[in-house]
């Protein structure tokens, strides 16, 4: 007799037992309903947010186009806005979207912060997470696996059937594999519902190209599968090592609470204390300090800009500013914007890098709390992680720079130096300015450096998997 022969009957028996259990259908329905609510309300909210963002973008464009005759520098201070739209798959995984500013004012001379994050308007009472399809899969799916599987092995020990089976020549490995297959089959409907929610989430969010969306689904789906299989293997292993179902349940519930609730917060606190960010006041003070050292761009006689004056005069072959064919104060402002924009970029990049350091630490914690690996991959693929927020900020800044410099060009070439501030440019000038169209961060750059998360998930499958296959049941 082949040692693998009882594999199929064991798997089939386990599966039958599972799906005929009273709670099975209830659990599947509850799981589906929660996913549905999360997806439905999430999509509603994302859709509203997207519509709102689009309507404000349109309003601001309208206001822009209907400006009267204005001096270009006046317009540079009038500025414009960038609105942050929800990430590509925000209806599936809102990620950090609630914590990111939604409106960013773009003006001359300064880089502002994005304000009005959803979280600032929320009590801390519900900070334990927001029901979304991703939350259901990350936090609740493990519970489903535990509930379905904790008695799987312990039952045989408890009832004494184990001795019988072993006596009939069934090897421990075949028994474990059979049970795994049976439980896995029982989980298939749950995973199918999860997959449907994922795909529905993608189509409800629907932004970006279809091919990119499919790779996003593939990434999240693969991470989900690893995550679920890891929980399955862990559940069966603990069940096999326990002499009673209740013991297995207690241990698994404790592992779940530790890895899904406690450790993620602990990791965040650890990262925060380990790599503290500068405070807003410190950051602004340092930045302002350096900006001030650049000189005052509104004052053409500022000593910092004497070299620029020499250079400009030489380029146009004149000796006096009054003889320049271009507007010298605009030339100064242009240089100043160039310098300050470089400073902004450096300081904001440093800030983002500091946050990335914190996130690296959190991602590393995925080796003890696999949920962090899954959630990092899911948010990255959904375009709702720190990186996409930072990418938005960066794109808005480069848009701001181009927009201010274009106004400075107009100032330089179209406004005479004499009576500078009394002149205006026609209203039609503004209509030629482009709109801000932030592009979503590509999946490839979103996932750069995520090897650690994959590795953590792989270990999460491997360690309990190997332990399960090599396990010896506890003798009752």
């Amino acid at each position: 007799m082949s040692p693998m022969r009882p594999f199929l009957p064991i798997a089939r028996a386990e599966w039958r037992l599972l799906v005929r259990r009273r709670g099975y259908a209830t659990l599947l329905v509850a799981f589906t309903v929660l996913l549905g609510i999360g997806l439905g309300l999430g999509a509603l909210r994302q859709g509203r947010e997207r519509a709102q963002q689009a309507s404000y973008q349109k309003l601001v464009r309208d206001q822009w186009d209907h400006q009267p005759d204005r001096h270009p520098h006046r317009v540079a201070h009038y500025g414009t806005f960038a609105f942050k739209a929800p990430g590509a798959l925000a209806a599936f995984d809102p990620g950090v979207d609630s914590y990111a500013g939604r409106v960013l004012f773009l003006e001359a001379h300064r880089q502002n912060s994005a304000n009005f994050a959803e979280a600032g308007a929320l009590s801390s009472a519900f900070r334990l997470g927001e029901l979304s399809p991703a939350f259901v899969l990350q936090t609740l799916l493990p519970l489903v696996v535990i509930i379905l599987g904790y008695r799987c092995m312990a039952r045989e020990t408890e009832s004494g059937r184990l001795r019988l089976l072993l006596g009939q020549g069934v090897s421990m490995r075949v028994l474990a594999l059979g049970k795994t297959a049976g439980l896995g089959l029982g989980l298939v409907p749950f995973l199918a519902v999860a997959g449907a929610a994922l795909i529905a989430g993608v189509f409800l969010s629907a932004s970006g190209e279809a091919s990119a969306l499919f790779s996003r689904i593939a990434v999240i789906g693969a991470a989900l599968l690893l995550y679920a299989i890891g929980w399955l293997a862990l559940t069966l292993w603990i069940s096999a090592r326990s002499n009673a179902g209740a013991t297995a349940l207690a241990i698994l519930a404790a592992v779940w609470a530790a890895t899904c609730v406690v450790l993620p917060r602990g990791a965040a606190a650890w990262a925060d204390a380990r790599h503290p960010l500068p405070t807003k006041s410190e950051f602004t003070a340092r930045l302002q300090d350096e900006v001030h050292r650049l000189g005052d761009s509104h004052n053409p006689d500022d000593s910092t800009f004497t070299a620029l004056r020499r250079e400009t005069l030489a380029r146009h072959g004149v000796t006096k500013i009054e003889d320049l064919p271009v507007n010298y104060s605009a030339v100064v402002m242009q240089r100043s914007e160039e310098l300050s924009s470089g400073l902004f970029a450096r300081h904001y990049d440093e800030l983002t890098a500091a946050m990335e350091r914190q996130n690296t630490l959190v991602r590393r914690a995925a080796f003890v709390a696999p949920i962090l690996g899954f959630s990092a991959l899911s948010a990255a693929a959904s375009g709702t992680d720190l990186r996409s927020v930072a990418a938005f900020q960066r794109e808005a800044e480069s848009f701001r720079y181009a927009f201010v410099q274009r106004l400075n060009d107009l100032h330089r070439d179209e406004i005479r130096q004499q009576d500078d501030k009394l002149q205006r440019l026609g209203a039609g000038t503004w209509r030629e300015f482009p709109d801000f169209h932030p592009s979503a961060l590509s999946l490839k750059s979103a996932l750069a450096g995520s090897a650690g998360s994959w590795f953590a998930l792989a270990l999460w499958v491997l360690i309990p998997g190997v332990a399960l296959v090599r396990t010896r049941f506890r003798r009752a």
Partner: protein
Amino acid sequence: MNPTLSLFIWETRRLLRTPAAWIALGSLLIAGLFALGSGAAKISRQEKEIGQLAAQHAAGLQRLAGHFHDGTHAGEIAYYTFFPSHQPLTDLARFSIGLRDVAPSAVWVRLLGIEAQLYEAGIGNPTLQALGHFDLAFLVCALAPLVLLMLAHDLLTREQQQGILTLVSAQARWPHRLFLVRLLVRALAVGAVCTALFAVGCATLRVSLDPAAWGWLADLWLYLAWWTAAAGLIAVACRSVSASLTAAATTWIATVVLLPAIFNLAVVAAYPVSEGLELTVRQRQEVHAGWDKPKEQTFARFFPGRPEWKDTAPVTTRFAYKWYYAMHEVGDLSVAREATAYRERLLARQAAIERLAWLAPPAFGQILFSRRAQTDLDAHLDHLAHVRAFHERLKGFFYPLVFAEQNLKPADFSRLPSFVPAVREAHSSTGGRLPLFAGIVVLAAFTRRKLHARFGAARA
């Protein structure tokens, strides 16, 4: 010796002999020390920021003084001077960080339109913010109940499983009392760990034991009392260890994780807050429209609120500071409705959250604790109102100078107003705790009924 007391001592000894109890209580203690450290680290950074504000402000003024040795128009000084304002930290913020990780500690304002400055975001890593903080309030709200349930759910079922429950209850003269003493011992053990952590926090983190701190501790015990009643009901109502374990796990998961997540989504979906965006866009439009309008139009909207300046000389030049600041004030006025709507929207949302939190005691506990620590939304909105009032004080100082076209010299800088945080009492009424009290009474009544059903009416 009083039989109840000796029973109590006997049960305490018994609990302390089980390794599982040591592991559970020890983990709670270690997690609690970590929570204290994490809360302290976060809040001390904010304290440092607040502590540096005066020096940063002075440095800014010094730079200005270097630029304008002989003084310049007060309007120009006002344009370049940012004034710090901060939301003061209570000692208890170390125990309950609340909103303090997303709301900025300091807001810098100058004489320009306040509405464009008030809502400036702070610096924070959204990933960490989304994961949440690990403070003592989280430990008490989420982890302490977990430990309590672990220790208490099988008070009866374990012995029933072992077949000795009838024996035990036959020997005890009052099986009810035996059960209650057991429950109490476990609740006190968990409460003692939490109180010890509170004491360690007070001692090492310089938390003064004022009424607010005692109130925090009282809320802690009240909250644990709710869980004790819940654990009692689970222990008497279930007939097997796996049933009581399932009931305990379900209760914990539902109230700590699932319901708050559902409520969070529900509130965000039902109360969208778009007023902030509206306000921002509109304010900018109104302020800048002022540049293109005849100056009289701006003043016509400015004077009704500021009649004291209505006899000021008309502006005939292209630019005048008094017109410039009037324009900014008119910009603020034109979004006053949106600003109120924004605040009211947030309060409505908060009210909905508090009502929903009745169904999820851990969320309710978070609300109680952050209210005591003044790290809640109310405290933040009050702070914004104070910043607004401070902005009015800036106007009170600068307007007379600006409208009189006066200069300010560096020597005058010492007269500039500075922000003084208002002393704020935490709103806390016993009535606000009604849901917990009511929950305790209802749960205790059910427990009593089940207890009687199981052991019959009290013999004795």
